[in-house]
């Protein structure tokens, strides 16, 4: 096919300005890669028309896998034949998005050979997104990827690619090994990740502390967030240093503690740890002086999701505190118990957070075999519509 000069006056506007330009990126690949060139062409058309020129995907993928590839077709295939089919791979990233230059080059080489040369580093779920492959290239590219040690992540109604914060690799606050947990869970659930068999997607995210740098509570069906049980570790000397370096401890720390459990007398701070809700704020402000306690673990929360279609949810507390040691048996038992119940009774396209609201958290706990504890709720019910069990009277008599 003859190489016409491609005019992209609208997109060119987005090469201006200080922020690095995605248009520049597409152009970099477009110089050599005809798929990237047509991507650019079709995108310019979208800018003219103010509408997407992509169509629904349909079922494409690699043999034996039900997910990992997002099918995509152009609605202008005659004009942009190179992107007539333009599927993306979701390649499962390494825990914490750590790479060596060598590993990256391997991926680049594979993608130069089989695809558009365009990527997202990374997708919102965490995968390496290889953006745009023809249908016939899917299998060979996959073979090269696995050969090089890379596998696909999730898509469809399966376990989605777990992700985690940088954790113990470079953060002093990690209350458990987020990277190992993420890796272990991902490896343990390869089948659930690659072969959709749930009512809908199921996402894991691992954050090392309540700062939640991987936004687990907002976007994972199972959010594992590090925390601690005992006293915050304090180095009073360093507290004084912060004070003399200009931190207004009263205004910036004491007044902002959500439970008002810190006091500062100008010389030392005292924390009533029984009132502390492990919010991290005081530690965040004075990282040299304060640190999470030593009895560390995680809170397990479940059910976060985006709004479609019942409204967005944040995860809610499921297990207030759990120790996090490999092989993470409790997490796995819990996840599998959830999948059993949700798998059996969940409706199609019903996320686990919605499912729990539909069947009632109390009933769900009974099915899972977990004791209700008040930590699971913000407050007890305000409405009097209690579904009393038949055996109520006897139950009560036992107390």
């Amino acid at each position, binding site marked *: 096919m003859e190489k016409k000069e491609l005019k992209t006056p609208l997109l060119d506007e987005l090469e201006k300005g200080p922020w690095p330009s*995605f248009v520049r990126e597409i152009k970099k690949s477009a110089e050599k890669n005809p798929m990237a060139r047509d991507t650019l062409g079709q995108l310019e058309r979208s*800018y003219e028309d103010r509408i997407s020129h992509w169509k629904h995907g349909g079922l494409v993928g690699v043999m034996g896998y039900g997910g990992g590839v997002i099918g995509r077709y152009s609605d202008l295939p005659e004009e942009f034949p190179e992107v007539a089919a333009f599927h993306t791979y979701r390649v499962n990233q390494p825990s914490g998005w750590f790479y060596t230059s060598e590993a990256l080059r391997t991926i680049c080489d594979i993608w130069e050979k089989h695809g558009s040369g365009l990527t997202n580093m990374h997708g919102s779920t965490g995968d390496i997104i290889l953006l745009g492959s023809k249908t016939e290239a899917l299998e060979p590219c996959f073979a090269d990827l696995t050969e090089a040690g890379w596998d696909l992540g999730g898509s469809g109604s399966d376990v989605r690619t777990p992700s985690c914060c940088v954790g113990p690799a470079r953060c002093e606050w990690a209350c458990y090994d987020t990277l190992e947990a993420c890796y272990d869970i991902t490896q343990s659930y390869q089948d659930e990740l690659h072969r959709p068999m749930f009512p809908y997607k199921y996402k894991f995210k691992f954050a090392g502390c309540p700062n939640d740098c991987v936004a687990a509570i907002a976007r994972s069906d199972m959010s594992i967030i590090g925390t601690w049980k005992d006293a915050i570790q304090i180095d009073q000397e360093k507290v004084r240093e912060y004070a003399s370096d200009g931190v207004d401890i009263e205004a910036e720390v004491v007044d902002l503690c959500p439970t008002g459990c810190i006091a500062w007398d100008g010389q030392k701070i005292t924390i009533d740890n029984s009132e502390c809700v492990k919010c991290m704020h005081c530690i965040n402000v004075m990282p040299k002086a304060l640190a999470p306690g030593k009895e560390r673990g995680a809170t397990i929360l479940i059910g976060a999701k985006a709004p479609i279609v019942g409204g967005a949810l944040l995860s809610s507390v499921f297990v207030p505190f759990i120790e996090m040691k490999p092989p993470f048996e409790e997490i796995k038992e819990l996840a599998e118990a959830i999948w059993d119940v949700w798998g059996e009774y969940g409706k199609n396209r019903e996320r686990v957070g919605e499912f729990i609201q539909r069947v009632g958290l109390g009933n769900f706990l009974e099915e899972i075999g977990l004791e209700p504890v008040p930590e699971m709720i913000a407050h007890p019910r305000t409405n009097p519509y209690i579904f009393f069990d038949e055996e109520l009277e006897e139950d009560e008599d036992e107390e």
Partner: protein
Amino acid sequence: MAVAQRKTDIGPPDFKQFLHPLIKKNYGTWKYHEILEPGVMVHVAESGDRIYTVRAGTPRLLSIESIRTFAGLADTYTGGYLRWTSRHNVEFLLDDPAKIGPLKKELHELGYPVGGTGNGISSIVHTQGWVHCHSSASDASGVVKAVMDELYGHFTHMDLPAKLRVAYACCLNMCGAVHCSDIAILGVHTKAPTINHGDLPKMCEVPTLVASCPTGAIRPASVDGKQSVEVEEEQCMFCGNCYTVCPAMQINNAETDGISIWVGGKVSNARTEPKFSKLAIPFLPNNPPRWPEVVEAVVNIVNVYAKHARKHERMGEWIERIGWPRFFELTGIPFTKYHIDDFKHAGETFKRSTHLKHTR
């Protein structure tokens, strides 16, 4: 074509092989960190070892050419070790502080800004838009680029009261943590889907389609003798769920698609509990290539926040302190009936007390 020996279910590579030796050695024993300057941090281990991080902004959409460039920089400065962050920034991990300056210089020359740390604005988490998604009510990368060009100074300087997280999603599916962002920019459809009655019977199952609509706006109908559906336009809230299950329900619309702005969400548990973002501006027009209305709206909100919030106060914490009436007053954003929730838990969002400031 000779296909290499096929493996499956090997999972991702073990991250440990990608860790900088200094990180491997001090794994889990970091003591504290300091932000040395915007985009540059040091983490100090109990052993006394120090690892330096240089963080740079990227457009997320990267050509393999650029990835190779980053790999080259890593070879030169870090022994080949680098990572990406949860907000799409690239981080170089150095053991030699002397190399920070030269690395920064090269990044600068390449056009990748160093910054994104501390109390400022980091990269905008975003989605596919017109680059790859069929549902998008607007482009993603273009809006993000236009907005970041204006917020650039808050990426390279830590000059805000607290972290300010901006996120973008191109449709109500909200891929990304858009619903819990200090500022969320969200593509919205505002017109009921156009039905392709010709394709519908071929492509979709009517019962599934009818069931997909959360408001029950879709009803089976016979059109020109064929089994199809009709949409009760008054009941449609433009969620696009029907389009997700059936391509013949065209929700995209060049005239009526646009962008909404949401504010005050957060994810961290620091100080206050995580919060959803709330509607600030229901609709702004799709105006490529630079979406001036959207850029202006975001910059305005950032400026008002920067001027009025107290130190450590996230957007939502600030608004809760001053109250929503004052937020609308200070930003000059008009309050409309669209701001008032009318979905399932709407009643929970009404003001059920007399705690009012009465200053208007």
